[in-house]
């Protein structure tokens, strides 16, 4: 892994069209400003990994009988819970 040291206000360029700038450093927190084309998706890695894991547990590769699922009534909530 490439490791570089940057100061506040300095940036990095990845490829031809992605720029990552150190915007602010506050104790243990670093604010990063990213300039990238709209087709480039940017996620916080812990969120990305969480979604990936959920998708994997949602994917059905077998032939488990799900008839009872399709017959059940859906519960509608007004405000979603965490």
């Amino acid at each position, binding site marked *: 892994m490439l490791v570089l040291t940057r100061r506040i206000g300095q940036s990095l360029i990845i490829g031809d069209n992605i720029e990552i700038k150190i915007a602010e450093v506050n104790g243990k927190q670093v604010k990063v400003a990213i300039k990238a084309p709209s087709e480039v998706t940017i*996620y916080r890695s812990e*969120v990305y990994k969480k979604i990936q894991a959920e*998708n*994997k547990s949602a994917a059905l590769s077998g032939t488990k009988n799900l008839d009872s699922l399709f017959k059940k009534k859906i*519960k509608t909530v007004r405000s979603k819970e965490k």
Partner: protein
Amino acid sequence: MSEYITIQSPRFGELQCPEDKIIEFVSPVLGFPNSTRYVISDHDKESDFKWMISVDEPEIAFVILDPTLVASNYVKVIDEHYNRFIRELEIAKVEDLLVLGIVTIPPTITMATINLLAPIMINAETKTAKQVILEGSDLSLKQPIFEDGPA
């Protein structure tokens, strides 16, 4: 006349998918980099659940559901992110936007949940799709679907 693609699904057997019904993911469903093409089909007339079956890897299928059926205020969530959807999927008119949630079905079926945090958005006109993460929201990754589901 539409061309058909034949896929062999372990669950559904041989399926004939009209080419013009195939949804193409501009970025794959996270965790499934080799499946970009899917076909969506109703389970049956009575059920609100639908199937999203991978054309590229037909052994992979997801159960999907209109998230507004589970969380009535999800309409507002879609509204809030509408500009992002039209930009990322080049949606021309509101009727073309289709938002669906992936359902996770644990061994106990009543515990099934829907992913409200990262829905699938589809441009019904161009048949392109994307899974979007609605970051910064307090939407659940595992919203219970049934009354007797998880507390």
